[in-house]
């Protein structure tokens, strides 16, 4: 049977990398003795995959993993067995089945909604931010030039991938929905870089702001 699980990555464990998270899951299903199907080949691996990568330092309320089990089990039992084996900070909140024939979750991921805590000091700055935000969203193009990890210079138009961006005054957070599909992947930090440029605040430590994924959106109403 094909199943998915939705889990949180709480702030205290947000430094776990994507690769480490895969290992966490492999070990958790071993401890839970879930009958996960194994891949063929010389080095068989359990058939499971995370829907999308979450950058190191980002916490989340909406991480998904899918896996294939070799036997049918009640979802309730699965949840019970695996929940007690997860490390603290990675609670499972939902288990469900997936249609046998549907595409991998990985290829269905479309967008992410982030909650961003910014280093703002006073109401002046908040107002500045709001007007910068409005101005940005009115643009047809938002081109960012940056160097990737290999040092290659990249020029990317972020605008088509920015789906929503709004300031939530009550919680003093920025809500940002961006495309995070295999076709177009927008790093929230890149949006913040442009926002900081617009505000004349190039000193913003965009890599250190508090980032939290609130929801992950899939194509085809798959959640």
């Amino acid at each position, binding site marked *: 049977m094909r199943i998915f699980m939705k889990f949180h990555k709480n702030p*205290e*464990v947000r*430094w*776990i*990398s994507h690769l*480490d998270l895969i290992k*966490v899951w*492999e*070990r*958790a*299903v*071993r*401890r839970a003795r879930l009958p996960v199907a*194994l891949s063929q080949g*010389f*080095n*068989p691996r359990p058939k499971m995959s995370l829907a999308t990568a979450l950058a*190191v*330092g980002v916490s989340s309320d909406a991480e998904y993993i899918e896996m294939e089990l070799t036997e049918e089990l009640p979802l309730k039992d699965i949840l019970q067995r695996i929940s007690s*084996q997860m*490390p*603290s*900070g990675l609670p499972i909140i939902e288990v469900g089945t997936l249609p046998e024939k549907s595409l991998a979750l990985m290829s269905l991921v479309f967008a992410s909604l982030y909650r961003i805590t910014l280093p703002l000091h006073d109401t002046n700055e908040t107002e500045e931010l709001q007007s910068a935000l409005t101005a940005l969203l009115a643009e047809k193009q938002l081109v960012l030039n940056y160097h990737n990890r290999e040092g290659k210079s990249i020029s990317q138009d972020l605008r088509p991938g920015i789906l929503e961006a709004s300031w939530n005054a009550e919680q003093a957070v920025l809500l940002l929905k961006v495309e995070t599909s295999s076709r177009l992947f927008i790093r929230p930090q890149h949006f913040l870089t442009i926002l900081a440029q617009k505000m004349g605040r190039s000193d913003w430590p965009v*890599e*250190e*702001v*508090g980032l939290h994924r609130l929801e992950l959106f899939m194509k085809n109403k798959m959640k």
Partner: protein
Amino acid sequence: MTKILDDALLATVSKPVRYMGQELNAVVKPPESVEVSIAFAFPDVYDVGMSHLGSKILYHVVNSLEWAAMERVFAPWPDYEALLRKEGAPLTTLENHLPLNQFPFLGVTLQYELTYTNLLTILDLGGIPLLAADRGDNDPIVIAGGPGAFNCEPITDYLDLITLGDGEEILPKLLELYRQLKRKGPVVRKEYLLQAALLQGVYVSSFYEASYNEVGEFIGITSLVPEAVIPVRRNIVQNLDTVPYPETLVVPYGEIIHDRAMIELFRGCTAGCRFCQAGCLYRPVRERSLQTLLKQAELLLRSTGYDEISLISLSSMDYTQIEALIDQLLKRYRKECVGVALPSLRVDSFSVQLADKVQQVRKSGLTLAPEAGSQRLRDVINKRVSEQQILDAAGGAFDAGWSSLKLYFMLGLPSETDEDLAEIIALAQKIAALYRQKKRRGKLHIGISVSTFVPKPHTSFQWMGQIPVEEIKRRQYYLRSLLRDRAIELSTHDAETSVLEAVFSRGDRHLAKVVLRAWQLGARFDGWSEYFRPDLWRQAFIESGIVPESYSEREIDFSAALPWDHLDSGISKDWFINQWHLAEQAIETPDCRSGDCSMCGVCPSYGVENLMAKEVR
């Protein structure tokens, strides 16, 4: 330094997961729920420290006591140290994120000499006065243990108390002593240390005074208080089945060196390699029973979810029940795809067969350690391996499907000549020829790794000087010049690093100021080639008025007092001298497990004996 680091700043350092904690099976006790707590420092980076079995054992032993807690701390990587200093934040433990000076104890394990500067970093960022003499009743008591305890003299200025030998029984006793004193009122450091000194295996270095002659050479040590005995005897657990072993392990995030379950087959080794310090510090051989090991393997695999288990000891192939153990592990766990790792192979075809058995799937490289190229030199170091055995092992590996082989050798061994070195390459050539003769398909690769011999205290070679640094480099160059075959690759160790290791191995208390000065100048992670700064060390030696070669290269008289003489391994000096003479004549000494007792002295002196696992049906 009281405000804890804002953890958002971890985004600016490499591998922030090293400082995060929160791992599965970590024991986090509310600080107010225990009577005594100890921060335990491994003075290297998390990835290395978390791979160390001894620390895992002590973590389990202490945290099993309901009135005590142990929390972990590791040396901060230079980028993290810089961040802590910039922010004025203290180094904290991983469990409760507490600064180190809030613990009554700081434990530190001394695994190798080139971590001493990291120890100072940990003390300093932990808010603990560097010098033991400067610590007051409210500062932590700094306890050290591990193999390095047997010559801790170069750093005793920074330690309050050192334990010798097996730690699982003495550490709870030391914590219990503190607990008892604390119940009577605030603990006075001096009083605690005086009472601790009465326990076997405890060395309170400040209760001893070292003397030196007019040229600064060590001539002896005297006790300053009646509680401080000479020699300090070590602790030996005779039956390892009776002491606690972890039932679970902290499962780290991030990549660490050895990320797998571990069972310790036995402690001690009586193979008798004359260069080997571990072979002298942990005698006699004490094997765990097969049932105990299988039970421990089951508990660890179930509670960690690891897919690999490593069989740890100084020479795992020598475990009496090794075949039965491997058969049982494979039988029980193969269908769950759990691999068995054998970290130390013996150089013979039996070992290769077992390695083949456990590696049915992954044919990773195979490592053998002949240690010396010529038969004569192997006899000098008592390696007790013939060339035929080496060739049989290599041939067996090729037949089993390996095409990549790694061979370990040492350079600079006593009496070594260029002819001995040439035989290292010649041996590799013979192995290569063997492979080609078999007309196998895979591409042959023979990696020769040559480290530099470091004379270690508590070995038969302790009196011998290391060859000078230029000579190390010349011999390395000479070896390289002999390479003709592209299938053979040679790697050597940094010469300056080996010299520093020799200096501190055979060092005395004069060296404390050199460590401090080098650290002040910026020396960190000296065992890591990317951080090792020989220039800073040279400057530190000059400023301290100490000639490093007077430690590393000095030939010491058999009659001279040694700075570690008062730290008792149990082996008599006469035995070491006798072994030295046998080495000179290239005469072997058998392993006392199977051959005659060579009268090293440990068993009668401590009332212990070799203990072998019995066959189980």
